[in-house]
């Protein structure tokens, strides 16, 4: 699985600038405020010239105590917290949480609600990956893909907003179904609101545009020799190391491990849809980039199919007015755009959970930094860090 192709070996050899002079090391403090740390991550790097000898990530600058806050919030209120964990894919965060509560309470959501959840999850995945597509070339110094990718992300966010009322924090999932919290006016407010007119058509059109921007990005970024020079063979994470650090999502699949929770878990009706899981071969930065680009295309494919197969029916299952979840505990996980996101919910009966433990993808993905950055050059440090696609809110929670 980790056979190195000659191209990679060549690039590695080129990257290996021998440091022969004995020079004292220097401590380079990167962050918490630094253009490439995506928020407030701090890296204490020991550098010898431009070569990083050791890295110590310092996290916690964005700790908001969501697990503790969840202990004094009702189940409905917690949705407003969880969609703020990984804010670039807010909708996808709500799914595993709400499914955990539903399973614990023994409530089955309606099929239409499940399909709408699926469509919006994939839209959130597209928007999250487009953020990566925009920020990663920027980290390598190319400023233009940023705007091209964000342009299409804006389209996707508009779609999410037209349904849920929120761009980043939809708060659209209810136990047993979906429902926008926004009322459009007095007459219909109390009815459960379905998709607004034109949404399905608009989504279809937007998926075409997303495909077009993927073509653009392939020409602008993927095929660019300078990008290839900067990313191929850089930050190689072999499959076994990736697994031992508990990585997930695109980072794991770039290392060639065929693991996607959409194929393994049944919390959303993915089984009815046909899609591929892009896999990388070498686990370098370039593979992580390409895997995500392909995932955008696959997500667009999923959305198209889900629109075709969208069942009609009610949006909300019958739920008691005051939701009391029976005592018990459950762990539900889902494929978040960043990787495996799971919630361990413990209920002692009552309106408020006893404990909600959040397993977020970025935290585990970030933990490999000291391993993978050892011996990298300072420019590669930025390239590798960016390729892991983490969000600090998802790391610190």
């Amino acid at each position, binding site marked *: 699985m980790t056979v190195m192709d000659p191209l990679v070996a060549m690039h590695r050899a080129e990257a290996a600038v021998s440091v022969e002079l004995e020079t004292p090391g220097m401590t380079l403090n990167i962050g918490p405020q630094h253009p490439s740390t995506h928020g407030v991550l701090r890296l204490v790097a020991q550098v010898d010239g431009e070569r990083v000898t050791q890295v110590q990530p310092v996290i916690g600058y964005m700790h908001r105590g969501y697990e503790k806050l969840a202990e004094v919030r009702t189940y409905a209120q917690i949705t407003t917290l969880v969609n703020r964990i990984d804010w670039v894919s807010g909708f996808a965060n709500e799914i595993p949480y709400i499914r955990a509560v539903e399973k614990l309470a023994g409530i089955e959501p309606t099929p239409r609600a499940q399909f709408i959840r699926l469509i919006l999850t994939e839209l959130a995945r597209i928007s999250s990956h487009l953020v990566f597509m925009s920020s990663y070339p920027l*980290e*390598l110094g190319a400023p233009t893909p940023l705007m091209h990718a964000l342009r299409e992300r804006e389209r996707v966010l508009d779609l999410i907003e037209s349904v849920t009322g929120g761009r980043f924090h939809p708060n659209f999932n209810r136990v047993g179904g979906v429902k926008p919290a926004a009322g459009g006016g007095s007459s219909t407010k109390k009815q459960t609101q379905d998709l607004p007119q034109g949404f399905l058509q608009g989504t279809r059109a937007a998926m075409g545009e997303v495909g077009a921007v993927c073509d653009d990005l392939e020409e*602008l970024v993927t095929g660019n020799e300078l990008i290839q020079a900067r990313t191929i063979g850089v930050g190689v994470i072999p499959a076994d190391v990736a697994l031992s650090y508990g990585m997930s999502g695109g980072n794991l699949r770039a290392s060639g491990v065929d693991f996607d929770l959409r194929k393994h878990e049944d919390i959303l009706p993915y089984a009815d849809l046909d899609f591929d899981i892009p896999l990388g071969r070498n686990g370098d930065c370039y593979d992580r980039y390409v895997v995500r680009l392909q995932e955008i295309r696959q997500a667009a494919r999923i959305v198209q199919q889900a629109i075709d197969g969208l069942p009609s029916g009610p949006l909300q299952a019958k739920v008691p007015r005051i939701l009391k979840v029976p005592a018990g505990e459950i762990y539900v996980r889902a494929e978040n755009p960043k990787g495996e996101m799971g919630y361990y919910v413990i209920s002692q009966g009552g309106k408020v959970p006893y404990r909600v433990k959040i397993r977020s993808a970025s935290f585990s993905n970030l933990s490999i930094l000291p391993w993978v950055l050892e011996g990298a050059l300072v*420019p590669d440090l930025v390239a590798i860090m960016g390729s892991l696609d983490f969000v600090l809110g998802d790391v610190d929670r």
Partner: protein
Amino acid sequence: MNFWLELLLKLALILAVMLPGALVVIFGELKISAHMQSRIGPYFAGGRYGWAQPLADGLKFMQKEDLVPAAADSMVFRLAPYIVLMGTLATYVIIPFGPDLVVENLDLGLFYLLAVSSLTTLGVLMAGWSSGNKYSMIGGLRAAAQLIAYELPLVLAAVAVAVQAGTLSLNGIVASQAETVFTIGGFDVALPFVLKGQIIGFLIFVTAGLAELSRIPFDMPIAESELTMGYLTEYSGLRFTMFFLGEYAGMVAMAAIVSTLFLGGYYLPFVDADLLNVVGPLVLVAKVGLMCFLFIWIRWTFPRLREDQLQTLAWRWLIPAALVNIMLTGIAKVVL
């Protein structure tokens, strides 16, 4: 005329060319980059198209506090922007705008040019070293390492031009590009060097020139995402403005040099030699604009290379190619 008066006049002339040139290029970069990214770009300052944006930016910078970090070597820190600006200014002296429109027609023009243009790197190194900031220092050192990598291909590419032209004077180089190569239907056709076999030299010179300007793909000394702002990290206010202006003035100068060496400079076919003193500057400005657009275009398309990759590029590819280029030029010169 009095020597000092003449000097002062010439200096004023250079500034009158350099400052508007830099401002126009800054505005061009703002607008072109915006449209390449499907944005509108500057819009408000100075009416509909935001033409006054560079001036507004300059005014804003002037109001900023001029900070000198406590850890900085304050004298060197204060001096560095002037050195950078000086190095750029000095190149303007010998750029010919017309057969007689040149501040100083040096016989050793090309030599002088290549010598003073590396002065800016000294200023950058001073800035990086004196800032008392680790990012600045890495940026400064990268600039120095970069100088070693690109200076040789730059010089070698220019040598081939000098060999072909048979002179080091910039006016002479332009004049030799105005020589008739062949005649079609009674028209004397003269070709610029880029079409007279110096295409490899042109590519090498532009690549190395981009590295000299520290523009993407070779902006490692600044490398915003890695080193925050490289050697500029600690600068603010007027001093930052000087670096900023210097950068763009340098870009104009580099474009003018490339135009002079490879694109025929102020020369336009079918224009009378006497008239060239009038249209020459316009021709040069058009060519400079074209080159600047190319620089901007590249800047907003490509990512940044790595420092060691620049060294590889320079020593493994550019320098051998430049040497071969000189050889071929020499052979052609002797045979033809």
